[in-house]
């Protein structure tokens, strides 16, 4: 019998076979568990409640109302020339009206404390694309970005996968509420240097994901001083800027720059998106706002790889330039998020769980370190598994966010109804009660 000679399979690239997409990490594994057994108030009340998805569903009704009332925003047939322009060559400049509307919306979110020039806005299909694009522009393969921990797990994939750029963590810990310090920045920079890795920039998320807190003005100024000193870039991912619970506490890097007359600003770039603040992740709208002309030009050309359809731009341009709508939305959304946040904080407190003091975002940063067997990552993951399989809650373990202190978890509260949140809180409460009982009963060998 002839032996079949196996021909070598046609090869794929390293990018294609790498697992930098990170879908094997707990952050995503939890989602799978949810997909397999999703909670439903009526049909599956013992299912897994998804608390790992940072999405904003609390203000859907406002959007629905707007679209009901303004159906002309979705109808382009009538305006002949409008349509022709609309279906125009997918020009990477984007519709002027849309860029204007975005600029104005970003200004409103910052209470008018910063001005945005529509010509510096580059549009992309989502913040994911915006962050990757900036990374391509600011760094070469092998270079690094410094990112304060804990950070959004998706960065490992979004910033590194195709770009070949590395992430060097800037370690922040609970001793000072996870604030970013100049010492931590310097330490990270030196760490990179010692491995002969060139640092090209710092990337911060403000308000922070997963901390759910805004960065103080003084910290922003220190960061700016650091990047200036090192002659590197600063990317400020401000996608949660509209999800602060009060209007005043959020300070954008744009405000700091404006206050100093835009000195040294061409190393600063802001990322924004409508997915979180406006609850429109399905629209895939992201923007890069750069104070650097070269970066704007290049980003614009690169946005050819990640365009937003002119139809979507048109729709959003109408909506975002409607001040009545936006002012009401921003205000109402804030109030509702604040209320939700209070609800979960109180609920957790009743169960004896503390959270980091938060003032923004769609999640809270919960401290379960007292529950750990040992202060290790493994213990944290064991606890996470219990939460997932016993309590049936999918929350995000701090280790997947590269948190150096074990035992912290990110818990989302805006992607569900109030009733569902109540169910989740009850489950946590019961879980904590069981643990207390377990601890006070010496005969209990295992749970």
């Amino acid at each position, binding site marked *: 019998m002839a032996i079949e000679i196996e021909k070598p399979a*046609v090869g794929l690239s390293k990018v294609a076979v790498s697992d930098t997409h990170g879908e094997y990490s707990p952050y995503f594994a939890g989602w799978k568990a949810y997909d397999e057994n999703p909670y439903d108030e009526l049909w599956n009340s013992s299912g897994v409640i998804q608390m790992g998805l940072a999405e904003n569903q609390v203000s859907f009704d406002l959007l629905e109302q707007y679209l009901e009332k303004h159906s002309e925003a*979705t109808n382009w047939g009538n305006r002949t020339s409008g349509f022709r322009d609309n279906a125009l060559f*997918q020009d990477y400049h984007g519709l002027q009206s849309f860029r204007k509307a975005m600029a104005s919306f970003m200004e409103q979110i910052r209470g008018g404390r910063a001005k945005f020039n529509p010509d510096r806005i580059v549009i992309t299909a989502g913040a994911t694309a915006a962050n990757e694009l900036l990374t391509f522009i600011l760094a070469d393969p092998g270079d690094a970005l410094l990112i304060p921990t804990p950070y959004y797990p998706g960065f490992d994939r979004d910033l590194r996968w195709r770009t070949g750029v590395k992430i060097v963590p800037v370690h922040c810990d609970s001793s000072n509420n996870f604030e970013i310090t100049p010492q931590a920045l310097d330490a990270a920079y030196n760490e990179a240097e010692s491995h002969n890795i060139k640092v090209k920039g710092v990337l911060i998320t403000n308000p922070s994901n997963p901390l759910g807190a805004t960065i103080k003005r003084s910290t922003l100024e220190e960061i700016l001083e650091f990047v200036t000193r090192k002659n590197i870039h600063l990317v400020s991912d401000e996608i949660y800027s509209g999800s602060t619970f009060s209007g005043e506490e959020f300070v954008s890097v744009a405000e700091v720059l404006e206050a100093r007359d835009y000195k040294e600003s061409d190393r600063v770039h802001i990322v924004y998106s409508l997915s979180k603040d406006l609850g429109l992740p399905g*629209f895939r709208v992201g923007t890069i706002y750069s104070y650097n002309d070269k970066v704007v030009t290049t980003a614009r050309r690169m946005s050819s790889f990640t365009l937003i359809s002119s139809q979507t731009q048109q729709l959003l341009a109408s909506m975002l330039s409607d001040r009545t709508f936006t002012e009401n939305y921003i205000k109402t959304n804030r109030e509702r998020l604040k209320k939700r946040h209070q609800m979960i904080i109180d609920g957790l407190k009743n169960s004896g769980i503390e959270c980091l003091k938060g003032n923004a975002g769609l999640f809270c940063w919960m401290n379960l370190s007292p529950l750990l067997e040992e202060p290790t990552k493994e213990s944290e993951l064991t606890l996470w598994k219990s939460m997932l399989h016993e309590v049936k809650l999918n929350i995000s373990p701090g280790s997947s966010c590269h948190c150096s202190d074990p035992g912290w978890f990110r818990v989302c509260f805006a992607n569900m109804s109030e009733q569902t949140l109540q169910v989740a809180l009850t489950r946590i409460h019961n879980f904590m009660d069981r643990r207390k009982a377990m601890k006070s009963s010496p005969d209990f060998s295992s749970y």
Partner: protein
Amino acid sequence: MKKTRNSTTTTTGGGGATTAMRVIVPLQGIVQGRGGLFLGSVIPCALFYFLQLYLKGRGGRNSDEPAAPPESSPSETHLPDVSTLQRVHSRLLLSPRGTSGLAQVSSRIAKQADGPYYVGLNHAADDPYDEMNNPDGVIQLGLAENRLSLDVVQEWLADNTRESIICQDLSISGIAAFQSFDGLVELKVVVAGFMSQVIEKPMFFNPAQIVLTAGATPAIEILSFCLADPGNAFLAPSPYYPDLDRDVKWRTGVEIVPVPCRSADNFSLSTTALDRAFNQAKKRGLKVRGIIISNPSNPVGILYNREMLYSLLDFATEKNIHIISNEVFAGSTHGSEEFVSMAEIINTEGENFDRNRVHIVYGLSKDVSLPGFGIGVIYTFNENVLSAAKKLARFSPVSAPTQRLLISMLSHTKFIQRYIKINRERVRRMYILFMGGLKLLGIECTKSNGGFYCWADMSSLIRSYSEKGELELWEKLLNVAKVNATPGSSCHCVEPGWFQLCFSTLREKDIPVVIERIRRISETCISRS
């Protein structure tokens, strides 16, 4: 002193404790993250170190790690000129020095395309022709965008948009919520059906093999990222459309090795040329990972017949490489020749060829007058590529409302049938008219069966039979005749004098205007004798 091959700019300023042992490591090591690999030898390192100190003392400018021992004595008052730092890595010469103290950006910024193709497009965009309002404006013949049948689509949209986006039973939460990045299943199903309608054959396209992206441009880039590593190459028959350079090469680091096609062969691809190009690439140390073709081809507009497709598959099998077939103009065929999709070959000859090497790119913007609604399709037979592409689609996803709209539109099969028919007729009509007009001027075009452009031989109008002569004509066309056409050199055509003239943004009555303008300057051109 050994030259460091890594990106050699040291950031300066309070670096403070730079390690005394400046490490000399190969680029490879850095990229592979083997930090901490100490290979350096002490003396060059120490010399380096002292030079760094000297340069840093110069006040915080970014400095290159020089290849040669410092020539300037400490008493000099200025830094050595960049150009005297010879043997620095070529990338560095490209990267912008910027103003002093400005943070550097990546070398990708330097590698931007700025050739005639882009200049012409911008010119035309800045000063667009309008019969009424701007009769002296630039007529755009450089944009392969289909406006011929916009009115048909517009009519449909006027009647159907609102319901499509916000269906009765599907509230905003349906369109606003998080969906998988590679497209809604319903859309993939109707796109599969549409692809079959477009090629006018009852071919089965499997929706499960589809990844949807925000346009054909990211579709090609994603495939490039999946099939080749930085420094590898694709073969591409030339002339090829200018944007291919950007799509395949810009961010991926993949090279294109052109496979020249000639007018003598009607610009069709020959396997001899393929072989030659493959071997040349090998000699240059480039590993070829695949071939990328466009069918119908752009800028020429010819179709690949069955025989040629088989030859390509044989070649790819022999070399164990991939084939990417860009079929975005499949719905704009207008001649008598049959269009054969690569998918058809695989479907019918499945056993003879390894389907894992075949990937098709498609898009709606060319065929369905919807560039502003850009949807691209990756259709692959390779499970691993499919899996990777699905994840990579997150960087170029299509917005949900657009998807809903398209689901609705593409499901209206009667409308689509009608649209495809009308569009084809109009493309054909414009092609004939335009070709005819050019013929009157003595300008011949390659016989084309697809796409909405003419590939015209204007060499009789150029002064010197060279790229320079061609660009002079291009410039004259743009600035004097006020007609933007794409010169063959932007398409890597080896024969000077060829131009791509797209007629899809014109109306019939614009054609005489264009012909007249070209005629006027052709009279002022000295013909090559």
